[in-house]
């Protein structure tokens, strides 16, 4: 298990538990995200509060989850990104496909 999930109706707050989001846990992350989507979650808010480093394998899983979510009308938001992680996501334009917020509260306000 890599996500700690707090399900509130059809919104899931999912906190990544590891400091490193990498090849070692990318598949597990993808599976857990897809399970949430399949179970009918309409919005998954993924918190990166623990993550110091993200590699391309994990980014790949994140995007695969998004591609899986879109036709099923599920949104994925990202919150609590540390500066390094946020910079990388912005550098490769991921900020254009994911909505990014400071924290859960700010993300929940958009509902």
């Amino acid at each position, binding site marked *: *298990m890599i996500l700690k999930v707090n399900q509130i109706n059809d919104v899931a707050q999912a906190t990544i538990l590891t*400091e*490193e989001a*990498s*090849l*070692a846990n*990318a598949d*597990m992350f993808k599976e857990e995200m897809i399970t949430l989507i399949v179970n009918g979650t309409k919005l998954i808010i993924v918190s990166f509060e623990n993550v*110091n*480093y*993200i*590699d*391309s*394998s994990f*980014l*790949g899983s994140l*995007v*695969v989850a*998004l*591609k899986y979510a879109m036709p099923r009308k599920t949104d994925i938001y990202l919150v609590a990104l540390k500066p*390094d*992680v946020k*910079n*990388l996501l912005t*550098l*490769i*334009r*991921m900020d*254009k*496909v994911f909505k990014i917020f400071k924290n859960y509260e700010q993300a929940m306000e958009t509902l």
Partner: protein
Amino acid sequence: MISFPDPPSKVKTILIVEDNLLFRKIIESSLKKAGYTCLLSDSATEALVLLEKEMPDLILSDYDMPEINGFDFRQTVLLIPKIRDIPFVFLTSFTDDSMMLEGLNMNALDYINKETPMPVIISKLNNIIKSLENEHIRSIRELRIAAETLNVKSVPETSPELQSFRIHFWHKGYLGYPGGDFIDFIKVDERYCFALLGDIMGKKWKAWFFTFGFLSYIRAAIRFCVLDNDFTLKTIVQKINKLVYLDESLQNILSSLSLLLLDNQTGQISYTGAGDLPLISFDSERQSATTVLSSGLLLGLLEDGFYDEQIIQMKSGDQLAIFTDGMIDIPSNGSKKSDYPFFVEKIRPYLGKSKSFDLIKTNVLDQINDSNQMDDASIIFIEKQ
């Protein structure tokens, strides 16, 4: 030549599952003396929790333990895809033939009697690990031969010779494996040459196998556009994106791409990027380095990838670099981080020199090795003559 150096023989970790404290300590200290790192569990339940996070190189398990015995533990491990392939050895005092047979039938590599003298146990484990390592090296060698026979290369052997530009490139696969980075140059005629650099998300074989599919699409899209006399990069990249997006076999695979078109006549370089890192452009007149960002998304992400095209007018002595994210991943204080500005800072002092790329190679690239590399790393460096 694709380089597949042998994997580094790093320190191996053995998970010991043993309820007897004394025996656990004895075997731990012997294994440590033999150069192994040990993980310890006093029960199968604890071992299973540990295996959620750790990936030992071998599991050494007792049979007779309270709650879950060694055989049930083995059966459970076999049901978990992530850990089922970890080499498994029984070490127990239950040694009648039928039990040994039952243990070995559960895909255990050995069934060792606890009465065996410790040096013999260690030798047996050494042999198992060594032979697995040899097997691994052999598999990689065979794959390399197969790939070379098929003439599939994700990185070319040499740079093209151009009239107005000098091109250098460098690539190092993660831990020496071929990975998801790919480089190619397509010289259309004396005037135009394409240079491309991509990074399939993922590592090792899983990413490498897909580089050829991507490269084929990219080469085909470029060739078709050239046939139509259309050199608009954003059109080309949009075509590639659409091909990748519609290809169901590539549904879960994404790639970045930096595509450059070098015009030997005008000295212009056009640039379109897809989820790539910003390009570094060095102006020799002003002695200044700037980054150029493109707006496009990763290939295959959305049907429309919002691609743009930027023109960089190159004068004599101007330089330009594109690179993949393995270049900016660095170990820092025991953890890892990605730092684009840090990499720019590292190469900045060597820009604008007569042998800039050699200097970058010696001072930056040659410092990248198995101990500090975290992903496939590639760079293309272009100078206007």
